[in-house]
């Protein structure tokens, strides 16, 4: 459609607001409450414009573009009105500096002046220079505020981790309240009181910590002033550099913008262009990158055991020692453990090193027991390839979501945002989990069941759906056999055990069979203990019955990458890599561990080499320690929970003597005389990886890991019901489900070691 703004004919697609159209076409309209991604609010009234044929003035932010509109954005009257409104806003915001004529000369003297308790002017403000109010005042050229000024009462709230709240700087644009409700689904911040007494606060004026805050920092990121500020960077000097990385602290793959100065990270914020996170992050990505990168336990130098105790050594010495000791072990005598936080490059070289150079018995990694791996295996039980890739946005578009026991804000923050989005669009969300407390998003159906009854719940739902199966399910191969094997189901007994009413179960079954796009989200925590593969078979069948899509949710920055590499290299090892932590069995006598190490009993291994980024007691029991870079210091490729391949940059140079994993391994391999090593650059590795492993074909130029690249999957086989075989069940049900700590990164557990995160995680499970 075509409309006219200030006499200019502009072609517009979709249904954008006039403000968006104007901005896209370089027409300046001031605004303070508008925020892309949030519903229009029309509260600051600075974007008032005139639309021909309409009475009065309309805010551009909430006026939708229409064919043929004639819009005027700037008349003397409009400018006078906007100016008057801005003057009113400034009457309630410290504005001495904003209209000060001496500002340029003041800039020379304000280097440390920001270390003040109370902000009374821009020079004392944490966002001086980045403040949107400053920008608007400058653009509109305000010289005087002709009203008595008011300071909003109350002190700066500093009683929460990470975030300072200073109401005296607030202009009540409501962005924080809206992002908290609309995007994060947390509704922690709200408007309190009314009229000129309105302030931003929490229910009952409690701390954020006691109000269910996720500390995602979204409110800080959208705040146009310094009202909501990240405490740790408040008094920092400006950054020198900003780099884009993929957050390694969990498996969501958020793009982060990391600010640094003099080789140290200052802070991070979510990248609005991050393909997975689109401007959102979680407490770790937003507030803990600096702490993780510069933690005191960071391993900075190679160490070797000398006369019983560890001492620092140079790289040459350490690698020589490692090569010499490893050379003593015959094929199959060295076990290798890998980490889900290593990049694909590191893992690829590790797999090559283990299979070609060490001829190790196995490479174990946390992926072997992941939800994705178990789902894949359950599908194989029915002779089909289950697709593991998905798109987060598909969850947001779902009509029905069955969430099985995951504490999404903790383990899958981006998935949580999509569930919130779906809820806002009217989706039905059923959250099943422990009756003692599990995460249920606000607006979802809370289905609490007793511990260990996950399988039973799935069976009960299956029984309900089997009553009147859809025609599609009934046509699926194996249906009759499955129905027979399912047999009779004692519903009354199940209800009693589940402590759920018949009506409730029927309601949920009806929602699942309702025909709307259904997503079933599950992680390793559900079905609870005792389920194993049998539970997963039930889940696969339930998905077939309801026409739902199963979405496996795992943690670990590169778990899916590890899983893909493990599959690609599986044939090269005598035994399928399956048991993480049990790497030192009867055969192997030496261990090469990348990342965290399970506790090793004395005498269990003759040689332990640890390649890691952080030290701890376990690591210090090793014979040789090789310092590996963290993801903040080295570029690398990772695959997030969706199966999305992303290339991360490095934010800072390697700390201490640390080297990227692939570099350490290839140097070591070279020392052991292996062919095809060493690699000189990470690009060489990823080129090799793309060639050698079909799943990573997307890494090959020209796409080279750009925004929308996913792991290549085998074509999904025809759907079929799984009829579980009891022998498989018994074999797997013995194995305890390993739940990975979601706050661990390369052996550094932030929830235990960072005081603030400890406070955040120490709260009871949020119920909404």
């Amino acid at each position: 459609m075509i409309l006219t703004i200030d006499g200019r004919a502009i072609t517009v697609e979709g249904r954008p607001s006039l403000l968006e159209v104007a901005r896209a076409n370089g027409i300046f309209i001031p605004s303070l409450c508008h925020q892309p991604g949030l519903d229009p609010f029309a509260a600051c009234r600075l974007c008032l414009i005139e639309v021909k044929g309409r009475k009065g003035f309309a805010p551009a932010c909430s006026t939708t573009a229409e064919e043929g509109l004639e819009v005027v954005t700037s008349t003397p009257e409009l400018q006078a009105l906007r100016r008057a409104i801005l003057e009113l806003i400034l009457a309630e915001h410290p504005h001495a500096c904003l209209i000060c004529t001496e500002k340029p000369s003041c800039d020379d003297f304000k280097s440390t002046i920001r270390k003040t308790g109370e902000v009374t002017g821009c020079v004392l403000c944490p966002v001086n220079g980045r403040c949107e109010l400053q920008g608007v005042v400058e653009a509109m050229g305000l010289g005087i505020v002709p009203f008595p000024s008011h300071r909003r009462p109350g002190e700066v709230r500093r009683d929460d981790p990470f975030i300072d709240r200073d109401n005296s700087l607030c202009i009540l644009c409501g962005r924080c309240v809206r992002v908290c409700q609309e995007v994060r689904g947390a509704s922690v911040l709200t408007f309190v009181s009314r009229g000129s007494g309105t302030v931003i606060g929490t229910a009952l004026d409690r701390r954020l910590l006691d109000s269910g805050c996720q500390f995602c920092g979204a409110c800080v990121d959208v705040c146009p002033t310094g009202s909501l500020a990240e405490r740790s960077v408040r008094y920092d000097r400006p950054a020198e550099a900003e780099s884009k990385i993929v957050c390694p602290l969990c498996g969501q793959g958020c793009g982060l913008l990391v600010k640094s100065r003099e080789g140290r990270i200052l802070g991070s914020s979510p990248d609005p262009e991050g393909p997975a996170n689109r401007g959102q992050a979680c407490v770790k990505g937003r507030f803990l990158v600096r702490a993780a990168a510069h933690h005191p336990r960071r391993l900075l130098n190679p160490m070797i055991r000398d006369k019983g105790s560890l001492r620092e050594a140079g790289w040459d010495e350490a690698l020589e020692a490692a090569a010499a000791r490893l050379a003593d072990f015959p094929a199959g005598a060295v076990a290798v453990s890998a980490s889900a936080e290593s990049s694909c490059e590191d893992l690829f070289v590790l797999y090559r090193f283990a299979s070609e150079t060490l001829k190790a018995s196995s490479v174990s990694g946390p992926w072997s027991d992941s939800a994705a791996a178990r789902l894949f295996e359950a599908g194989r039980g029915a002779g089909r390839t289950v697709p593991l890739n998905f798109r987060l946005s598909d969850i947001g578009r779902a009509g029905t979501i069955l969430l099985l026991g995951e504490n999404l804000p903790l383990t899958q923050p981006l998935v949580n945002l999509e569930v919130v989005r779906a809820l806002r669009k009217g989706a039905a969300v059923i959250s099943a989990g422990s009756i003692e407390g599990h995460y249920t998003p606000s607006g979802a159906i809370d289905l609490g069941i007793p511990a260990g009854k996950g399988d039973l719940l799935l069976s009960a739902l299956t029984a309900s759906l089997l009553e009147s199966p859809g025609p599609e399910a009934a046509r699926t191969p194996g249906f009759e056999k499955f129905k027979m094997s399912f047999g009779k189901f004692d519903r009354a007994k199940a209800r009693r055990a589940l402590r759920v009413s018949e009506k409730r179960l029927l309601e949920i079954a009806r929602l699942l069979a309702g025909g709307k796009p259904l997503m079933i989200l599950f992680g390793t925590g559900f079905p609870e203990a005792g389920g194993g593969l049998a539970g997963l078979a039930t889940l696969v069948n339930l998905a077939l019955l309801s026409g739902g899509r199963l979405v496996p949710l795992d943690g670990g920055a590169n778990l899916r990458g590890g899983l893909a590499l493990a599959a690609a290299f599986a044939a090269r090892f005598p035994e399928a890599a399956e048991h993480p932590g049990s790497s030192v069995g009867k055969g192997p006598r030496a261990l090469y561990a990348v990342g965290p190490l399970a506790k090793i009993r004395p005498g269990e291994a003759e040689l332990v080499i640890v390649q890691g980024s952080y030290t701890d007691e376990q690591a210090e029991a090793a014979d040789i320690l090789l310092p590996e870079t963290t993801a903040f210091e080295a570029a690398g490729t990772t695959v997030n929970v969706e199966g999305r391949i992303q290339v991360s940059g490095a934010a800072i140079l390697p700390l201490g003597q640390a080297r990227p994993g692939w570099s350490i391994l290839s140097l070591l391999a070279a020392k052991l005389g292996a062919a095809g090593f060493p690699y000189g650059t990470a690009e060489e590795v990823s080129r090799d990886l793309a060639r050698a492993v079909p799943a990573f074909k997307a890494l090959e130029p020209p796409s080279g890991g750009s925004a929308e690249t996913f792991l290549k999957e085998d074509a999904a086989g025809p759907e079929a019901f799984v009829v579980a075989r009891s022998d498989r069940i018994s074999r797997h049900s013995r194995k305890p489900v390993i739940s990975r700590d979601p706050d661990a990164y390369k052996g550094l557990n932030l929830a235990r070691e960072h005081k603030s995160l400890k406070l955040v995680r120490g709260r009871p499970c949020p119920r909404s």
Partner: protein
Amino acid sequence: VPTYRTHLLVCAGTGCVSCGAFAFKEALQKEIDRRGLGDEVLVVATGCNGFCERGPILMVQPDGIFYQRLAVADVPLLVEEHLIKGRPVRKLMYVPPAAVTPVPKMADIEFFKHQRLIVLRNRGRIDPEKIEEYIAYDGYEAAAKALAGLTPEEIVAEVSASGLRGRGGAGFPTGRKWDLCRRQPGAPKYLICNGDEGDPGAFMDRSVLEADPHAVLEGMIIGAKAVGAIRGYIYIRDEYPLAVSRVGIALDQAHGLGLLGKDILGTGFDFDLEVVRGAGAFVSGEETALIASIEGQRAYPRQRPPYPAEHGIWGQPTVINNVETWANVASIIRRGAAWFSSLGTGTSKGTKIFSLVGKINNTGLVEVPMGIRLRDIVFGIGGGIPKGREFKAVQIGGPSGGCIPQELLDLPVDYESLTKAGAMVGSGGMIVMDEDTCMVDIALYFLRFTQEESCGKCAPCRIGTRQMAEILARIAAGEGNIDDLRKLEDLAGTVARGSLCGLGQTAPNPALTTLRYFRNEVLAHIVDRACPAHVCKNLTVFFIEPEKCVGCLLCLKNCPVHAIAGERKKVHVIDQAACIKCGACFNVCPAKVQAVTKLTGEAGRALRGGAPAPEDA
């Protein structure tokens, strides 16, 4: 059905109830039973008669006798004389102001005589808690007609032709609103009845809901058919417990008779209603804020368009109308658009209910045809100003309205005329002010009201009303300067043109009309530092005229701060430094003496300067 020779209609509106109407009714019933009249005389509790100032009220039918200001002690006399001996009790009848002979019949009382009842047609004659009585007076006939015999288009056409406009204040044509909603493709659609009446001094919605809840229900059933709505909400502020209870009873009864729910009256039409109780914010009366409130959100208005007719509650097409608007609908359908539009002016049809309060003899609720002159309301129905004071202004439309001065008393009361005069029909509050009212003080009162009741969402309203109130407070304190007038007018323009919703857009009206019609009074505050009405405390001093003072000690004893010195039979003197200007001395000084006077301006300042210090006295 038993018949009775006499019906005793006891008013059970909130005003009368608060004066003891229920106790009176109980005593009356007991006495009637005691005298063995139970089979002949029926006692009925009706909705509000509107003459709230005179409660408790009793109407005797079919005689048409009107009793007022009744007490339990009056019961034996009333029963003995009127019901047994057939002699109406003159001493319980209404005596007009400045008259001595009582007026026995309601129809002859000035307050009732000029009213024209459409919305309030059942007030004082039926028991609002009995659906049968509503039906007996043609109730639900219009609903039956609409559901069984009319198409949605025909209903909308009839309402459009009637010229009915929104009675909530803005006066949007009801038929057009319905038509817009009817044409929306989305489903389901909803109806809302806005009963969040919050203007100071306005209580017409409460009275309608209390006196004739079924009229609202019937209007909504007809509206539902017209737009194709499946569900409706009646939003009532929780400060109206009696209205909430009566609407609840009405809903139960309507369900019981198949007038709500599935397959209404066997016509296959489904519609249901529920009551939502408001939590008390003034801004909830704004339609988009009200919708947010029903949805469980904070009552924040949102920018229109889109209008609720396109994008209303739960994002669906919604018709939201005021209580009084809904209550008009059934009469229009029953008696036809031509009948309705024969009342009123060219653009404002039908009647409008006003609550007549303030310095006026007959306080209460009146329903008058649109276009009636203000003078007829104030001096005809209202009976003029008490105590022989001069009329000064009438504030119409509450915090969104303005003050109409004496010169405009012949203004016809309709949407356009009032808006042109700077006020607005608003929800229909009419506050009459006499010469003792300071217009700066009134403007300040209303601005403080909007400042406090502003939701705080948009900047011009939140901050602008505060700044305006501060300027007015400065003027009231005698600290204003001439530039403040320009500032005030500029700010008023910013707030009116910049604000998001109707609350802010109309918030400057009280101040603007004050500047427009009472500029001299404002200037007196600024230039002379005087408050001509002797209201603004900073500009007023209390003074005991030595020639008049009889030394009775009354003022001295009543002064809360002991600022008055004197002895019995000796002239009392106020210590101006200690005086807090509470006015207690002024109020207690006997009417025969009137020694305490108020001074302002130069006279007051001279007195304050020359006041003797306490130790010198």
